C-alpha cells in the first residue's frame, strides 16, 4: 500500500505493529525502539533512522524495515518488519577427541545463544583452519553446517566437521643454483622450516606457509651477511607427496660478492663523522653485509643495543631518524650515505604514573630515573622500568613506559609509566604436633606496608598498604618453646635519600619439661632476647648500585638451671653480645628479582664486638689457676673434681662453669664474610648463575678463644631454622645438612657454585624455573687448617616455584662426589627441599 508523503511531515504516532518476530515478544521489540504511542514523529525523519541504527546495533536482526500502514489525519500507523537472526542452540564437533572439542568451543566462542550470521560461520571456519595449519596439519578440512533446531524457536544447531588428516612434514629441501653457500648453511638459515629427521626434538619438522615465507627472506639474509647483496630466490616450489610429506625446491641466484665502499654521514651536527664511524664499526673494504649494516643502525632484537639509533636516543635525540642510502654501486663496491635527521633534543615535560591503586605516588616517583626538565635518554627509561620491577610491588612483566605528546617542534615529550599492582604479602599459618605438644605458627609479612596508617581504620583494606615499608611478624609457640619476632623496614628514612632503616626485636623462650613430661617447668629455662637496628645507604660512588650498611645488635642469653649442650659450659648465668656490622654490597641484577637475567650481586661484611679483653685486665690464660676460679664446697674449702677436700689451692680443680661464665659474659669475636653472585644470560632465557662465598670467624685474644657462637655450618639446603647462637647455615647441596662442619660449627669456609637456570613460566601468579648446578666447598676449624682447594664437590638438578602468597618453594636432587665424616666412599644422592629462601 502506497501513501504519498511530503518530505519529513510531522505526525503523531498512532500505532506501531511489529511483524516477523519469532522468539521475541512484540512488546519487547517496541521497547527496544524507544518509540512511544502518542509521541510526535517526523516521517521520514531522523527518529526512524535512529531507531533503525539502534536495532542494527543490537545484532539481533538480519533485516529491519519500516512501513507506513495508514495515515489518519495527524496520526500515522507504522509497521516494523524484522527478521530475526537464528541463535545457536548447540554445537556438535565431529572428527576430534572429546577433550579437544571442549577447548575449541571455548576458544572459538561457540556459545549457546550466539547469533548465527554468515560471517560468524566463515570466521569460525577460518579460525579452525588456521589453528590446525599452525600446528602443521596442512591438509585440514573444516565443514560447517547449520540445521534448524526444532525444540527452540528460531534456533539452529551447528555441526562442525574437522578432518585434520596427518601432520605434514618436510621430507626434502633441495637448493638449486647455490655455489657460494652450502646446502647445510642454507638449511640452517631457514629457522622454522626443517627437514624431517630422526632425533629432531626441539624444532619439529612442520610446514607453515607464513613461517616458510619468513624463512625465504632469512635465507636471503644469510647471503646478505656474506656480501651477496643481489641474492634472490628465483623460484620455489612445494610438492605434496602421498605419504604426508612435502618436498621443497628452492632455486637461488647468488650474484656477486660486494664490499663496502665509502660510508658518509650526512646531516649529523651533534656528533662528528668519526664518532659515528666508531659506533657503526664498519670500514671501507669490509665484505658487504646488509644485515649487519641494518643492525648497526638499529638493532630491533636488542632494544638497548649499542647502535647508532640508540647512540642518538640515549642523548636526547628522541626525534632523530637515521636512514642508510646506497648512493653508488661500482663493480663490487657499494658506497653508502647515512642520512641523519637529528631533530631537536627532547626534554621531559610531564612524568606520570598510572595504575598505582595501592602504592602511594611518593614511593614510585622517588625511584624514577626520568624527571621533568631532564634530557630524554632511552637507557634511563629502561633503567626505571628495571628498578620499578625490582621493588616487588608491581608485576615486573607488565610495566610499560608510554611516550605521549611527543612534540618535535618544541623538543618536549611526556612519559607515563603504567604499573600493575602485585600481591606483596605473605601469610603463614600452621599448626602441628611435634616436640611433645601442639606447635602453632603465625607469620605475617607485608612488603608494601604503611606504618603511618596503623591507627587509621579506613586504611585497613585489609591492611594499611602503599608506603613501601616492610613489616613482618612471626609468632611460634608450643608448650616448651616460644618465639616472637617483629621487624620493620623503611627503605627511605626521611624521604630525602634512599637510606634504609630497619629494626627488629626477637625473643625466644625454652623450658625443660617437668618430671612427668606433662608441663613446662618455668624454673628451668633458657631465654634469648635480641634487638637489632640497622641503617643502609645507597652510595653515589663508584656507582649507585653500591650500598653501605651499618647495624648494631644486642643479644642477651639468660640461662636458669638449663644445660645448653656445647654452647655454654654453665647452666646458670647470663651471656651478652653487642656487635657492630658493616657491609658493602652491590646489586645490579635485572629485571625480575625472582629470576635475574643478568648483572651481579655481592656483599662483603665485617661483624665485630668491642675488644673487651684488651682493657678488662683478665688473664684468660691463667683463669684455671686463679683461686677465684677453683672448685669450692659449701663452706668455701677448695675441692678436687671428685668433691674431696684438698690441702693446697694448687691441687683444687678448676671451676669450668665459672671460667665459662667469665669467658662468655660478653662475647668477643670478629667475623668477615664475602658472597658474590653473577648472572649471565647465555642463550634465550637460559641464565648462568656463578656464586662464590667465603667466611672467617676469629678471636682478638687467642687465650680467650673463638666463641662457640656465630659459626658456619656448611652442607645441605642452607636454610636457617632457629639461630639461637647466630650460626650461619651455608648451602652446599649433595651433602646432609651441616655435614661438612664439625658439631660445634666451623670458623672458616669457602664455597663455589655454578647454576644453569631456565624458566618455564615467569607469570605473576607463579614463576617456575628449572636449574642444574655444580657446587664445591668445605669448612675448616682454623686458619692453619684452611686449604681452599680441599673441597667437597657435588652436582644436581632442581626446580623452583615462586608464588607471591607462599614465597619460594623448591626441590633439588644432588649427588655428592666426595666422602664425609672421614669416610672413603662418595656421599651419593641427597634430596633438598627449599622453602622460603629467596635466591
Amino acid at each position, binding site marked *: 500500500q502506497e501513501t504519498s508523503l511530503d518530505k519529513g511531515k510531522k505526525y503523531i504516532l498512532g500505532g506501531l505493529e511489529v511483524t516477523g518476530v519469532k522468539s521475541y*515478544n512484540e*512488546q*519487547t521489540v517496541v*521497547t*527496544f525502539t*524507544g518509540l*512511544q504511542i502518542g509521541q510526535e514523529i517526523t516521517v521520514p525523519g531522523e527518529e526512524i533512522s535512529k531507531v533503525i541504527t539502534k536495532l542494527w546495533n543490537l545484532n539481533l536482526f538480519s533485516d529491519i524495515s519500516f512501513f507506513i500502514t495508514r495515515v489518519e489525519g495527524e496520526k500515522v500507523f507504522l509497521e516494523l518488519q524484522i527478521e530475526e537472526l537464528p541463535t545457536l542452540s548447540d554445537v556438535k564437533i565431529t572428527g576430534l577427541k572429546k577433550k579437544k572439542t571442549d577447548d575449541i568451543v571455548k576458544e572459538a566462542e561457540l556459545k549457546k545463544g550466539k547469533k548465527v550470521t554468515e560471517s560468524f560461520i566463515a570466521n569460525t571456519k577460518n579460525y579452525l583452519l588456521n589453528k590446525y595449519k599452525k600446528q602443521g596439519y596442512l591438509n585440514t578440512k573444516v565443514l560447517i553446517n547449520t540445521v534448524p533446531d526444532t525444540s527452540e524457536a528460531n534456533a539452529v544447531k551447528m555441526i562442525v566437521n574437522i578432518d585434520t588428516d596427518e601432520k605434514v612434514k618436510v621430507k626434502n629441501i633441495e637448493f638449486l643454483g647455490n655455489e657460494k653457500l652450502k646446502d647445510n648453511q642454507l638449511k640452517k638459515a631457514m629457522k622454522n622450516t626443517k627437514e624431517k629427521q630422526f632425533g629432531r626434538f626441539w624444532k619439529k619438522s612442520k610446514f607453515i606457509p607464513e613461517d616458510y615465507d619468513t624463512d625465504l627472506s632469512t635465507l636471503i639474509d644469510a647471503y646478505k651477511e656474506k656480501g651477496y647483496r643481489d641474492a634472490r630466490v628465483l623460484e620455489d616450489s612445494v610438492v605434496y607427496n602421498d605419504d604426508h610429506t612435502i618436498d621443497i625446491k628452492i632455486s637461488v641466484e647468488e650474484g656477486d660478492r660486494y664490499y663496502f665502499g665509502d660510508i658518509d654521514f650526512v646531516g649529523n651536527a651533534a656528533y662528528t663523522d668519526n664518532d659515528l664511524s666508531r659506533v657503526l664499526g664498519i670500514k671501507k673494504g669490509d665484505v658487504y653485509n646488509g644485515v649487519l649494516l641494518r643492525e648497526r643502525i638499529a638493532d630491533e632484537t636488542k632494544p638497548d643495543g649499542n647502535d647508532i639509533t640508540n647512540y642518538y636516543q640515549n642523548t636526547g635525540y628522541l626525534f632523530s631518524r637515521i636512514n642508510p642510502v646506497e648512493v653508488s654501486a661500482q663493480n663490487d663496491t657499494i658506497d653508502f650515505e647515512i642520512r641523519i635527521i637529528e631533530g631537536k633534543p627532547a626534554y621531559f*615535560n*610531564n612524568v606520570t*604514573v*598510572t*595504575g*598505582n*591503586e*595501592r*602504592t*602511594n*605516588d*611518593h614511593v614510585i*616517583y*622517588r625511584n624514577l630515573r626520568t*624527571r*621533568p*626538565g*631532564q634530557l630524554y635518554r632511552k637507557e634511563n627509561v629502561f633503567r626505571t622500568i628495571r628498578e620499578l620491577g625490582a621493588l616487588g610491588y608491581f608485576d615486573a612483566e607488565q610495566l610499560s613506559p608510554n611516550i605521549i605528546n611527543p612534540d618535535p617542534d618544541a623538543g618536549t615529550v611526556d612519559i607515563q609509566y603504567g604499573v600493575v599492582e602485585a600481591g606483596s604479602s605473605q601469610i603463614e599459618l600452621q599448626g602441628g604436633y611435634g616436640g611433645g605438644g601442639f606447635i602453632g605458627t603465625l607469620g605475617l609479612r607485608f612488603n608494601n606496608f604503611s606504618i603511618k596508617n596503623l591507627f587509621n581504620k579506613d586504611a585497613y583494606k585489609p591492611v594499611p598498604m*602503599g608506603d613501601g615499608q616492610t613489616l613482618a611478624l612471626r609468632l611460634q609457640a608450643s608448650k616448651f618453646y616460644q618465639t616472637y619476632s617483629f621487624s620493620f623496614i623503611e627503605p627511605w628514612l626521611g*624521604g*630525602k*635519600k634512599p637510606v634504609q632503616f630497619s629494626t627488629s626485636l626477637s625473643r625466644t623462650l625454652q623450658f625443660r619439661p617437668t618430671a612427668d613430661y606433662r608441663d613446662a617447668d618455668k624454673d628451668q629455662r633458657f631465654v634469648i632476647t635480641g634487638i637489632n637496628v640497622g641503617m643502609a645507604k645507597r652510595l653515589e660512588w663508584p656507582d649507585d648500585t653500591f650500598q653501605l650498611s651499618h647495624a648494631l645488635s644486642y643479644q642477651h642469653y639468660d640461662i636458669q638451671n638449663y644445660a645448653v649442650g656445647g654452647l655454654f659450659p654453665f647452666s646458670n648465668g647470663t651471656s651478652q653480645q653487642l656487635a657492630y656490622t658493616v657491609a658493602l654490597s652491590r646489586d645490579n641484577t635485572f629485571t625480575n628479582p625472582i629470576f635475574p637475567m643478568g648483572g651481579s650481586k655481592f656483599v662483603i661484611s665485617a661483624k665485630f664486638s668491642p675488644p673487651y679483653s684488651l682493657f678488662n685486665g683478665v688473664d684468660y690464660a691463667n683463669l684455671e689457676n686463679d683461686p677465684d676460679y677453683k672448685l669450692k664446697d659449701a663452706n668455701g674449702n677448695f675441692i678436687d673434681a671428685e668433691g674431696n677436700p684438698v690441702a693446697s689451692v694448687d691441687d683444687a680443680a678448676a671451676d669450668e662453669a665459672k671460667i665459662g661464665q667469665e669467658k662468655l659474659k660478653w662475647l668477643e669475636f670478629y667475623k668477615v664474610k664475602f658472597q658474590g653472585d653473577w648472572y649471565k644470560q647465555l642463550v634465550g632465557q637460559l641464565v648462568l648463575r656463578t656464586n662464590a662465598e667465603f667466611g672467617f670467624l676469629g678471636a682478638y685474644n687467642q687465650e680467650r678463644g673463638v666463641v662457640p657462637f656465630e659459626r658456619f655450618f656448611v652442607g645441605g639446603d642452607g636454610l636457617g631454622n632457629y639461630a639461637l647462637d647466630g650460626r650461619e647455615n651455608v648451602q652446599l647441596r649433595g651433602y646432609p645438612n651441616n655435614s661438612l662442619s664439625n658439631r660445634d660449627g666451623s670458623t672458616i669456609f669457602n664455597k663455589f657454585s655454578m647454576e644453569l637456570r631456565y624458566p618455564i613460566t615467569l607469570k605473576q601468579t607463579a614463576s617456575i624455573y628449572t636449574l642444574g648446578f655444580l657446587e664445591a666447598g668445605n669448612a675448616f676449624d682454623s686458619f692453619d687448617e684452611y686449604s681452599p682447594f680441599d673441597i667437597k664437590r657435588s652436582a644436581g638438578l632442581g626446580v623452583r616455584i615462586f608464588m607471591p602468597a607462599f614465597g619460594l618453594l623448591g626441590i633439588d636432587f644432588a649427588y655428592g662426589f666426595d666422602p664425609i665424616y672421614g669416610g672413603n666412599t662418595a656421599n651419593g644422592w641427597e634430596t633438598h627441599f627449599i622453602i622460603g629462601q629467596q635466591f
Partner: protein
Amino acid sequence: CSEYQKTLKNTDVKAKYDLAEELYDSGDYKRALRLFEQIAPSYVGKPQGERILYFFADAYYQTEDYYLAAYQFERFSKSYPRSDKAEEAAFLSAKSKFMLSPKYSNDQTETNEAIDKLQIFINNYPSSDYMSEANEMARELRNKLDKKAFEVAKQYNTLSDYKASIKSFELFLSDSPGSIYREDALFYKMTAEYNLAVNSIYARMEERLSAAKSTYTTLLKYFPETKYQKDADKMLAVIDNELQKFSK
C-alpha cells in the same frame, strides 16, 4: 528455612519481585539485592523494568557498592532516558564514581571518570536541583588532581632534584592557573630555585638567584598576605646578600 530463603530458591518471579520491593522499602538492601540480581534480567524491556532497575541500582548505592551502583545507574539512565528518574540516576551514577575516587596519591583513573561524568551531567541538566552538589564534587575532584601534581613537584624538591621540581612547578602553574595550590606552588618553586641557586656552580649562580627572586616577586604580587611571607623573606635576604657579590 526462612521465607526469604524459600523465595530465593523459588522460581516464581512475581513472588521475588514482591519480596524484593518489600525488603527494599524496609531498608534491607543487602537481601533485596540478591533478589534483584535474580529478577532484573527477566524484567528488561517490560513495563516494571524501569522501577526494578532503579531500585536495583539504588540498592547497590545504599550498600555502598559504588562500583556497581555507578554501572547500574548509568544503565538505567541509558535504558529509560524519558523516565522521571533519569536525571536522578545520571546524578547518582556520577556521584557513585565520585565516591570511588581514591586518595590523591594513588591512580586517578576513577577521579577523571567522575569529573567527565559530572561534567556530562552538568551539561545535560543545567537546571537540575543537584547542580550545586555536582559542581561542588567536580571542584573537589579537580583540587585533588591539583594536589597530586603539586605534591609530586614538591617531592622533587625534597629529593634535592631542584631542576625537576622547578620544571614541575612551571608546568603546574601554567596547566592549572586557577588552582587553590597556586600560592603553595609559587612558594615551593621559589624554595627549589633558592636551593638550586645556593648550591650552584659560580658561573650560573647569579642567573639562578635572579630566578628565585623573580618568583618571590610573583608570589608577593598575587598573594600579598601570603602565609609564607616569613620563610620567603628569609630566603630573599640570603638571595639579596649573594646577589650583591655579583653587582660589584
